[in-house]
């Protein structure tokens, strides 16, 4: 029982929290700009490496580097939007998908240029897990990640429900034309969406780096689960994306539990496949997602 909680359930929650931070951005961007942002995973990578620079320069723990990573990633995303995505506002959105596909490779090759392709970590050495009730083991980093994710998601919730800009963002995600005629500054909303989406992606990247390690492909490899989470939750539904992310994260970790017999149900090498299978299932039976998002 405790083995299940320690080695499958808790990692599932942690992974779900990391996915949630990335998927909220993907879902908001999909809802507002109407395109699948393929460079989102690489924004995660970028954020993680910005934090690495801060960590190695100032010698502070990675959690402390998160605000810097958020800010730099947000500025970068707003800049990318200005130079590479804005010219296509009136074009077919699929052109934006191609463009973001190119951006994802540019970001990755920039990271590889400066940091190489070797695996890096924020902090060396083995961290001993905290032990509760003699059997429940939780790694300290997992507590930080889950706690951090909850704080950030509450902040995003307050932003979306309490501020003018946040309300405008939800309005635009629901119906862009209606938002435009009711006098919402669409460009300002788009800028804010990029800033928030990228900042959240940067946090997700740092958390992923804290949980495992940093690698130039770390973000790209998360793209599939992120999209799966966004689709599962319903496109344009940030809360749905959070729920979807938790489901995907749990499903990926729990798929390796020996449910039948002593062997893992599914070889851990196929974790990503679980996310993909869930996504395909959703696309077949309920493309609007669990929370009735939009289907394009």
């Amino acid at each position: 029982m405790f083995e299940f909680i320690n080695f499958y359930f808790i990692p599932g929650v942690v992974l779900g929290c990391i996915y949630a931070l990335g998927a909220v951005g993907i879902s908001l961007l999909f809802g507002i700009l109407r395109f699948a942002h393929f460079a989102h995973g690489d924004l995660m990578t970028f954020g993680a490496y910005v934090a690495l620079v801060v960590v190695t320069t100032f010698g502070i723990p990675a959690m402390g580097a998160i605000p810097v990573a958020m800010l730099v990633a947000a500025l970068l995303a707003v800049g990318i939007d200005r130079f590479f995505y804005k010219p296509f506002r009136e074009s077919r959105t699929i052109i934006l998908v191609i463009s973001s596909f190119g951006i994802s490779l540019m970001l990755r090759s920039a990271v590889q240029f400066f940091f190489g392709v070797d695996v890096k970590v924020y902090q060396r050495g083995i961290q001993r897990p905290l032990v509760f009730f003699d059997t429940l083991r939780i790694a300290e980093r997992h507590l930080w990640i889950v706690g951090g994710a909850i704080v950030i998601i509450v902040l995003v919730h307050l932003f979306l429900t309490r501020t003018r800009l946040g309300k405008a963002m939800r309005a635009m995600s629901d119906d862009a034309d209606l938002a435009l005629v009711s006098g919402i500054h669409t460009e300002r909303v788009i800028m804010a969406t990029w800033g928030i989406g990228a900042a959240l992606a940067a946090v997700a990247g740092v958390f992923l780096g804290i949980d495992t390690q940093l690698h130039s492909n770390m973000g790209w490899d998360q793209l599939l689960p992120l999209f799966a989470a966004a689709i599962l939750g319903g496109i344009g539904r940030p809360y749905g994306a959070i729920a979807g992310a938790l489901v995907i994260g749990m499903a990926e970790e729990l798929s390796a539990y020996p449910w039948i017999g002593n062997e893992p149900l599914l070889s851990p090498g196929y974790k990503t496949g679980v996310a993909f299978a869930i996504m395909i299932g959703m696309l077949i039976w309920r493309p609007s997602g669990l929370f009735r998002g939009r289907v394009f």
Partner: protein
Amino acid sequence: MQDLLYGVMMYGISLLTIGGIYAILSLGLNLHWGMTGLFNAGIAGFFAIGAYTSTLLTTAESPNHFGGLNLPIPVGLTASMLVAGIVAFGVGKICLRLRSDYLAIATIGVAEILRLILKNEIWLTSGSRGIPSIPRPFEHLPQPWSELGFLAVVLVLVLVLYLALERAFHSPWGRIMRAIRENETAAASTGKDVERFRMEAFVLGATLMGLGGALTAHAFKFVSPDASEPLLATFLVWVMLIIGGSGNNRGAILGAVIVWAVWSSTELLSRFLPIDWLNRVGYVRIFLVGLILQFILQRRPEGLLPERYSDE
């Protein structure tokens, strides 16, 4: 002097061979994107399916991987097209009715899952070690002739595919495809079965990508899970088609040859650099190709050879 000339000739032959294989991939993508407006972001997936199918059928028996049936190469090539087509049919069944973004995500998914399978199922593919000694047509001939023979095979395939696609393009079938691309609702209102036509284009394009993968495996005589690496297979082909001119088969071929020539010659140039710069220059190269793609998308979205409508 003669040695140098010989070297240049051999380099030219290999450049044209790989360029020709890329032209086949680019023609396949043109069928998807240029003609029908289907966004396939997982070219690498179909490419790897083709590469491994042909490899497993045509190599000699080996304890390291499944298959090794020692079949003739044409059988391998045909099978690679078939298998890629069947997988495309499955993906298409699920995704073609949704908007193209979903197809893009699903095709990336197929490519990524395939990479997991290629790496994990060691009994089938011998894992990350890859499979060596894949036969190549005409390899028993002496040196320039064996390379020339393979080049001829590739060029004939490119020519045949080009002629066939040009016919398809200007046939009623091709017109329906473009009608669907431009306005799906209007095409459907004239009684066309949009989903069926899309499926035909998707499956056909995927067979070409499978063929391209199989030819690459035979050209290098080696295949590994890196075949499904999205950079070389998916991204370069997209850049080729966009630069050449999507919707135009000649543009697809031209783009493939130009981009491959630039890509491989810059690799050659970077060999003169100190060794610790070598890897870094590779990343600069990818970055620049990305930048060129952005430039073309914004400044000349129709590419070098724009789509022609004069015959209609």
